[in-house]
């Protein structure tokens, strides 16, 4: 058992006499108050901790705003928004994805250029994905057609389900 100053033996591990009055060897009459004060402090601290937790939860960005969701989430866009021959850039799993619809089908390519990270867009006339930074061009399967990019663009799984385009 922990022996305390002043010859007082405390039945509790966290007794005020041992904890608070380290440098004061005082009469036993003040120890009850400081003992209670200590636990008052603990209660206040618990309340304070609860408030901090609430504030932290408030500040933690909700998925709806942070966008994208985690890996494995799908993004859907109405078919009407992308006509045949048209293209649309959407956010999918936190990344920009350019969705191109051709007569042959629908394609989805991660729109971050593998050269220096610019966002590529669909060039209607050339029928290629064009990077605005260094005039690079990619085919719809992601392959580099022209320019400095070291590797092809990654593609996303995409299909038409009813009236929706689903990227996964």
């Amino acid at each position, binding site marked *: 058992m*922990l022996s305390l100053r002043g010859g007082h033996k405390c039945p509790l591990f966290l007794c005020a006499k041992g904890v*608070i009055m*380290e440098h004061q060897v005082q009469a036993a009459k003040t120890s009850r108050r400081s003992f209670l*004060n*200590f636990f008052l402090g603990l209660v206040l*601290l618990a309340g304070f901790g609860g408030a901090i937790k609430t504030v932290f939860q*408030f500040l933690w960005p*909700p998925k*709806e*705003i942070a966008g994208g969701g985690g890996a494995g989430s799908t993004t859907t866009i109405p078919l009407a928004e992308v006509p045949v021959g048209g293209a649309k850039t959407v956010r999918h799993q936190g990344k920009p994805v350019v969705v191109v619809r051709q007569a042959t089908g629908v394609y989805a390519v991660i729109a971050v250029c593998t050269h220096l990270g610019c966002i590529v867009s669909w060039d209607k006339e050339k029928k290629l994905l064009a990077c605005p930074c260094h005039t690079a061009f990619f085919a719809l399967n992601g392959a580099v057609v022209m320019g400095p990019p070291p590797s092809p663009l990654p593609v996303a799984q995409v299909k038409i389900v009813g009236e929706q385009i689903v990227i996964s």
Partner: protein
Amino acid sequence: MEEEKEKEKGQEKKFEERIYLRESVNLFTLLTGILYGELDGRLGIKDAIKKNLKKPVPHHVNLSFCFGGISFFLFLILLATGVLLLMYYRPTTADAYESVVLISNVVSYGWLFRGLHHWAANIMVLMVIFHMGRVFFYGAYKPPRDFNWVVGMVLLFMTLMFGFSGYLLPWNQISFWATTVVTDAMGALPLVGGTLKYFIRGGPEVSQLTLTRFFALHVVILPAAMFAFLFLHFGILRKQGISGPF
């Protein structure tokens, strides 16, 4: 010299006496209660708080003297919750309402902090007016406290400006039309009215510019001014003391 040496030796011995368990307990007190731990030994925080809490007030002081303090407490709540709301609010006509709905419906505890901000704001206006009434009916505004009454009037005006500017920020129908009506009322002032209305709205109509300047007023200009005048208000109060007995 020798005495000092002995003292040092004694201290060293004390230090050696300490056991690791007590060290960790001491650390625990330091972390949990600044009022009871080592930090208090250095800074005297408990004494400072005690001195202020046990500061004697005259016997004639009753509960109606609390309205001022309640107002200040509510101001602190508004400050804390306001800063939190600022983390999600977007002050544009396109986004403002959407961001407010998002705070209320999506963000964790957003409803709580927005609700606290709303109710604290409403009650603060009430409490400030009660405080003014108390000072007025007790005649506490009389010299030498007349200057502090004027400072208090400025604070009342600023509180109302807070309410007025904050009301527009959610950018819903009621806030839009309330601001339109109030600025129209300002426009009815003789001579300066039209200019004042145009200046406050930032144009002929309540628009994006109105929202932008009301936002700046609400979150930067007014809080800064409020702090300055509160400091003055409390400083003068501390110097002159509570009024009465009457």
